[in-house]
C-alpha cells in the first residue's frame, strides 16, 4: 500500500466513523421528538385552560394561571413533547405544594432556572452577562431567559430576524427606535436583509457585555471590520472594504491599534468608528442626516477638535488611498519621497561600495610582495 493509499484509507475510516456518529444522532433525536415523553400537558390543562383561573400573590398582584392550549401548540417545546413538568419540576400532582413567591417577578426569577436543565451552555453564558451583573447589583428587573424568549410561548428567537431587535426593544425601546432609522435597521425592516447586523451581532447573545467599557471601545473597530473589511460583502453594496486597513494607519487608527495591541485596558480618546459614524444611528454617508455627511463632518470633528476651522475636515484621509484626484499635494509628496529616497540611498550605497572595493584592492596589493 502506498502512503497515498494509506492516507486515503485513514480518511475513509474517519468519514465512516463520522457517518455512524451522525446517524446515531439523527436516529435518536427524532425518536424522542416524535413520541412525546410526557403527558402532563393534558392533565394540567384540565384546570389551567380556564381563562379565569387566577390567584393573588402576597404582593397584591393577580397571577393568572390560565395557559392557552393554542399558545402551547405554537411553542417550540410542546410539539416536541417537552411539557409542563419539564419546567415546573416542583409540581407533580394535584393538589399542588404551597408556593412561597411574594411577587410575579420573584416567580419568574425562580422558574427561569429550569432552563439550565437543557440549555446549560447558554444559561452559563448569561451568568457572565451585563444583565446578570445588573441583577447581582440589585436590579431584579434585569432580564432572565423567559423575559427574552417567553415562557409558554417559547419560539425560535430569530425567525424572522427582526424579532431580535423587537425583543430587545422591550427594555431598550429608545435605542431600537434609533436603530430602526439607521442604515442597518432600515435594511433589516424594509427588505429583511440578512447581512445587516441586529442587536445581537454586535452585542453578543447570551453573554452580552457592557458596551461602555474600555475593552469594548478598543475592540469596536474590529467589530465593524468583521463586515466592513469583507471584500465580497462590501462589493455587494458598492462599499469600500479598505476602510479598516486604511483607518489602522490613520491618525486615530494608529493609537487604537497600538493600544489594542499592548494596553487593551487603558482608555484613550482617539476616535473609533462609532465616534464619527454614530452607534445605533449609523447612516449612509450620502444621507444628509449622517454625522459623516460632508456637510456635517466638520461638526462631528468638533466634538473632539472644538477649535477646528473650515479646512479641517479635508485633513481626514483615513478611509481613502492616496490619489492624484482627491489629494494632489499628498500624492506628489508621496511620489517625491518614494522616488527621491531610493535614488539618494542607492547613490550613497554605490559610492560607499566603490570606496570599500578600492580599499580592499589597496590592502591586497600592499600585502603582496
Amino acid at each position, binding site marked *: 500500500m502506498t502512503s497515498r493509499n494509506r492516507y486515503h484509507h485513514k480518511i475513509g475510516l474517519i468519514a465512516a466513523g463520522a457517518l455512524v456518529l451522525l446517524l446515531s444522532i439523527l436516529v435518536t433525536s427524532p425518536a424522542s421528538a416524535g413520541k412525546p415523553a410526557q403527558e402532563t400537558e393534558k392533565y394540567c390543562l*384540565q384546570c389551567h385552560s380556564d381563562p379565569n383561573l387566577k390567584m393573588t400573590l402576597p404582593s397584591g398582584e393577580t397571577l393568572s394561571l390560565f395557559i392557552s392550549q393554542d399558545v402551547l401548540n405554537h411553542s417550540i417545546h410542546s410539539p416536541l413533547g417537552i411539557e409542563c413538568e419539564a419546567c415546573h419540576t416542583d409540581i407533580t400532582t394535584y393538589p399542588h405544594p404551597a408556593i412561597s413567591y411574594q411577587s*410575579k417577578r420573584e416567580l419568574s426569577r425562580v422558574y427561569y432556572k429550569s432552563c439550565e436543565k437543557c440549555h446549560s451552555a447558554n444559561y452559563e453564558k448569561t451568568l457572565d452577562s451585563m444583565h446578570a451583573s445588573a441583577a447581582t447589583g440589585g436590579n431584579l428587573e434585569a432580564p432572565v431567559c423567559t423575559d427574552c424568549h417567553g415562557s409558554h410561548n417559547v419560539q425560535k428567537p430569530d425567525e424572522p430576524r427582526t424579532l431580535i431587535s423587537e425583543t430587545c426593544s422591550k427594555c431598550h425601546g429608545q435605542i431600537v427606535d434609533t436603530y430602526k432609522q439607521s442604515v442597518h435597521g432600515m435594511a433589516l425592516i424594509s427588505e429583511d436583509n440578512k447581512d445587516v447586523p441586529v442587536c445581537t451581532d454586535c452585542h453578543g447573545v447570551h453573554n452580552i457585555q457592557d458596551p461602555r467599557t474600555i475593552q469594548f471601545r478598543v475592540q469596536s473597530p474590529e467589530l465593524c471590520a468583521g463586515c466592513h473589511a469583507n471584500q465580497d460583502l462590501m462589493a455587494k453594496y458598492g462599499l469600500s472594504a479598505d476602510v479598516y486597513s486604511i483607518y489602522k494607519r490613520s491618525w486615530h487608527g494608529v493609537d487604537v491599534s497600538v493600544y489594542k495591541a499592548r494596553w487593551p485596558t487603558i482608555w484613550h480618546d482617539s476616535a473609533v468608528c462609532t465616534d464619527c459614524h454614530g452607534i445605533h444611528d449609523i447612516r449612509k454617508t450620502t444621507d444628509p442626516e449622517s454625522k459623516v455627511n460632508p456637510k456635517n463632518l466638520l461638526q462631528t470633528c468638533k466634538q473632539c477638535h472644538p477649535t477646528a476651522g473650515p479646512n479641517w475636515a479635508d485633513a481626514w484621509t483615513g478611509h481613502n488611498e492616496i490619489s492624484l484626484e482627491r489629494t494632489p499635494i499628498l500624492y506628489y509628496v508621496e511620489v517625491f519621497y518614494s522616488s527621491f529616497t531610493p535614488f539618494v*540611498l542607492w547613490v*550613497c550605497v554605490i559610492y560607499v561600495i566603490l570606496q570599500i572595493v578600492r580599499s580592499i584592492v589597496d590592502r591586497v596589493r600592499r600585502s603582496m610582495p
Partner: protein
Amino acid sequence: MSDMTSTPTKKKVFVRFDLLQRVQHFIFLISFSLLGFTGLPQRYPLSPISTAFFELTGGVEVARNIHHASAIVMMIVSLVHVLEVMYRVMVLSTPISMIPWISDALHVYEDVQYYLGFRRHKGYYGRYSYAEKIEYLALIWGTVVMGLTGFMMWNPISTLRYLPGEAIPAAKAAHGGEAVLAVAAIIIWHFYHVHIKHLNLSMFTGKLSREEMLHEHPAELAAIESGKHEVQIAPTVLRKRQMIYFPLAFVLVAAFSVGFYYFVAFETTAVVTLPQGETVPAFYPLTPTPLPTPTPTPEPVAVTTLTWEAFAGPLAQKKCSMCHGATAMGNVNLTTYADAMKVITPKDSANSKLVIKQNAGGHPGQFTADELTQIKAWIDAGAPEK
C-alpha cells in the same frame, strides 16, 4: 575653525572643532537619535518592533513626548548654530566653507577615477570635503523640512487656517519620508565615512593629527602651513561689526522665542477627555406584564343542543375527567351519562351535587360562569341525554 596661530612651523596636532561646535554636534546627535528612535515606531506603528518599543517607553504618548522634547532641543541647537555661523561670517569674516563649489565637482570626478583605479590619488580636499558638505546641507534641508512639517502636525488646526486640509496628511507623509531618508543616509553615508572608513573622533576630541590632515584635508593643511589661512581683523572693525551683529542676533532670538512659544503652546488640537457619547438610558423598567387576554371561549351552545352528548358530556370530559374519570375520585365518575346522574338531580339544579360543589367555587376544574349557567339550564331542562 582651524588653528589660527601664526607660527609657520610644522605642528603635530591641529584644532579642527572648537568646544561650541563639539557641544552642538553632541547635543544634535543625541536629539537626532531620540527623534529617530521615537519617530520611526510611530511611522511603522503596526510592526511588532514598534509595539515592543512603545511598551518599553510606557506608551505611544510617552514616545510622543520624548519626540517633542527632543525636537525642542534640536531647534535650540539649530538656533545656536545659526547665531554661530552668522558671527563667523559677519564678524570674523571666516570664509563660507560649507557651500559646494566647482572644486567639489572636480574632487568627485577625481575620486571616482581613483576608486575605479584610473588615478593614483584622491582629490585634494580643503577644509570640508564634498562628502561633508553634502551631509551638512542635507542636514539643513532635513531640519527645515522636519521643523516645518513637525510644526504643522503639532499645530494642525492653526496650520489649516492658512493651508488646505490635505496639507496635514502631506506634512505627515513628508515628515515620515524625510525621516527614513535622514536615518538611512546617516547610517550609510555618515557611519561609513566617519566611523568605518577611518574612525574620526575629531568631533569629540576637537583635534586631528598632521597625518590625518594630510589624508583628509591636504589643501587646508597646505593653506595653514603656508600661513595663508589667517585673517587679521582690526579691533575697531571687530567692534563695529559686533555692534551690528548683536542687535540682529537679539532680534533673531526674540523671533525664535515667539515662534517657539507658538510651536509648543499654540493650540489644543483635541479635547483631553472625550465628550460623553450616548446618554440614552439603556434600561427602562419593565412594565408589569398584563394578564394574558383569554382566548375567546366558544360561543355558548344553543339551547336546543343542551344535551349530555352534545354539551355536558364533552364539558365533563374536558374539565372533570382527570379526577372524576376512570379514577373516580370521591366515588364520582362523570364519564358516562348513567354515572353522572348520581350527582345530578334532573329538573332540580339547586339540589344537584355537581351544582352545589361548583357553586361553592374554587373546585379544581372549576366551570366558568357561562358553563355553570348552561349546566344549570341543562339540568333544569331535565338533563336530557340526547
